[in-house]
């Protein structure tokens, strides 16, 4: 992409100025870049300075040193209306206003473009409806916002930010409070908006695996305020994730691209099966109850998955005992029964 960057910052130091305690630096030496059409996810543990960075990049809070440049001009030099036409935001604060339809909310995004009375022209109407359509919320247009689910409301707020016709959209944890399918749907919408309109989108999130799958680029801030920018896959391979997020007992699994729930080891297993969905989920189930894959050929238990004429059967063997199971639930039941009887070792 050769078009000039939407937002850049050079040697930026962010933090708070306090009259009594002086300056509190949150992060320094930040050299960042946001390109048109790019979806960037900002991730980091709680308290690492994500919000401070977002507040500084959107000009709500002045930097301690260095500068943020939006479309070739220092962000503090933009007039309020000019800035509103360049940059729009989606905040975490819930909107609980009554008597407003999705259309009314999205229409508010036209604020910097309309006259003193807020009169909507034919053009404004078209922008509003196309913003609603591009987040897939056309069927919600005339529904009241307070009757919507969190996921629907989030779509409307994204449409509002779009109707402002900015070059850059900044979203503060847009996937918080949503269930997993809606998290994915929201990310899909944002990515397609970035691709189809060429807007730069920056969002902060706690959903790491989602960020790894969706972002064009990740900004990771660690506990000490160090920011590393890169392509998600490179960052996974280089092990940055583990060191930035790892807390005692929780580690990042670079194969699955997510944090693994720590296992209290009970024994080892050998799984004999074709590669299949059943094989993967049997594997996960055994890990969940405390069994790790055995190094070499010998494990404490051996599980075989067979297909008996369209019916999947699990066979579990340990020492001399063997048992047939019709589901993973039965399999787990048998294993813990063996465990109680002391058959395992």
């Amino acid at each position: 992409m050769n078009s000039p960057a939407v937002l850049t910052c050079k040697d930026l130091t962010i933090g708070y100025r306090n009259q009594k305690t002086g300056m509190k630096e949150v992060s320094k030496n930040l050299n960042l870049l946001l390109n048109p059409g790019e979806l960037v996810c900002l991730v980091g543990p709680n308290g690492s300075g994500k919000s401070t960075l977002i507040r500084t990049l959107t000009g709500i809070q002045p930097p301690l040193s260095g500068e943020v440049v939006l479309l070739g001009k220092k962000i503090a030099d933009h007039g309020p209306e000019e800035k509103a036409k360049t940059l729009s935001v989606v905040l975490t604060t819930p909107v609980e206003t009554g008597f407003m339809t999705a259309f009314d909310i999205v229409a508010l995004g036209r604020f910097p473009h309309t006259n003193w009375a807020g009169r909507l022209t034919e053009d404004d109407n078209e922008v509003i409806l196309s913003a609603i359509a591009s987040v897939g919320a056309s069927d919600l247009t005339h529904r009241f916002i307070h009757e919507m689910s969190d996921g629907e409301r989030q779509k409307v707020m994204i449409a509002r930010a779009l109707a402002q016709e900015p070059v850059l959209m900044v979203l503060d944890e847009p996937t918080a409070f949503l269930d997993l399918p809606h998290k994915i749907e929201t990310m899909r919408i944002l990515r397609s908006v970035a691709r189809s309109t060429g807007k730069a989108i920056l969002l902060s999130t706690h959903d790491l695996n989602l960020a790894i799958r969706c972002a064009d680029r990740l900004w990771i801030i660690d506990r000490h305020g160090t920011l590393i920018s890169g392509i998600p896959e490179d960052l996974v391979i280089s092990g940055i994730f583990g060191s930035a997020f790892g807390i005692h007992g929780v580690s990042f699994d670079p194969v699955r691209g997510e944090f693994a729930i720590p296992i209290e080891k009970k024994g080892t297993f050998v799984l004999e099966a074709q590669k299949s969905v059943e094989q993967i989920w049997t594997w996960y189930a055994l890990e969940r109850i405390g069994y790790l894959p055995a190094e070499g050929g010998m494990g404490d238990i051996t599980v075989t998955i067979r297909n008996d004429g369209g019916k999947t059967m699990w066979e579990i063997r340990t020492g001399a005992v063997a048992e047939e199971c019709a589901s993973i639930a039965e399999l787990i039941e048998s294993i813990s029964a063996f465990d109680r009887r002391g058959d395992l070792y």
Partner: protein
Amino acid sequence: MKPGESCVRERFRNPATGPAPATCTESFRKVSLGIPLALCILGVLFALDIVLGSVNIPLDSLFAIITGGEVKDTWATIFWVWRLPKAITAVFAGAALALSGLLMQTFFRNPLADPYILGISSGASVGVALVMLSSGLAGIGAVFAGLGFLGDVGISFAAMLGSLAVLLLILVISAKIQSNVTILVLGIMVSYISGAIVTILLQFSDESSMHTYSFWTFGSFSGVTWGQLPLFAVLLTVGFVVSFLLAKPLNVLLLGEQYAVSMGMDYNKVKNTIMVSTAVMAGVVTAFCGPIGFLGIAVPHFCRSLFVTADHRILVPTCVIVGGIIALATDIISHLPGMDLVLPLNAITALFGAPVVIWVIVRGTRFGRGVTT
């Protein structure tokens, strides 16, 4: 335009596949019917407020009075000196209270906010109490007591001084404190302090001034004379015009301060304009009519439910009209047509108004709306 975008827009041009490119049609249709209807009701009630009272003026005599025909002198006097200024005062006061209530509810995003939440009327009541009750006190009390000799004008003046003092206090503090919840708490604290001062003054005053003071707290539209009416009307009209100009920023404030600022709104300017115009409207009404409750909190909810909208371009004009209607209606009821008795206005506004508002809101809740800012 990108290919995807044009296709999206195309879909909306085609009425067969997408919803019509309509604006908030339902509300606007209701308004285009509702506003003329409400204006008619306002006119009828205005006439009734003039005609009805302890002495009823027959309608044909009313026309004669206006056209300068021959009628009984007492009727003409009642019309010119009492009824007409009272009806005009009621319309302006009702509209101003409804509007300032709307401004406060939107600004604080709180359905319980009313015109007095900044402590404006509490300041006014301290001013009035000082004039009426402090004859026995030395020092500053004596100065205020001196105002009492000016009669009603002195009372209005004292009330305005009190409101102004509170407004200045709130403005100074709010310039330093950003959170508007803090301003809310501050206003309530000012009310408590004022209440305490008034209670102490009441403790040390004689029975007749206590009675005068409590009569002031009942509220009345009858106190404004022709001499005061121009000032009263002009100040309130300025408030109406400013509120109308605020409609657009008020709409974005519904999403909260942060969103409003992110869309390019000058928050401090809008905040100060809202506070000053609320204070002027609530302060002037309190100064001339006493602390009239209920109207300011109820009318905005009533209008939202009635017109199913939160759009201030609709709410500002409808609050003006509906506020006027309710003020006239309560004034008619409080003067008990055909009788000499006058009931306290504040009792009537709540007694007759509250059931109506409850009905509208409950009806609204059935459609999943209910009370909201």
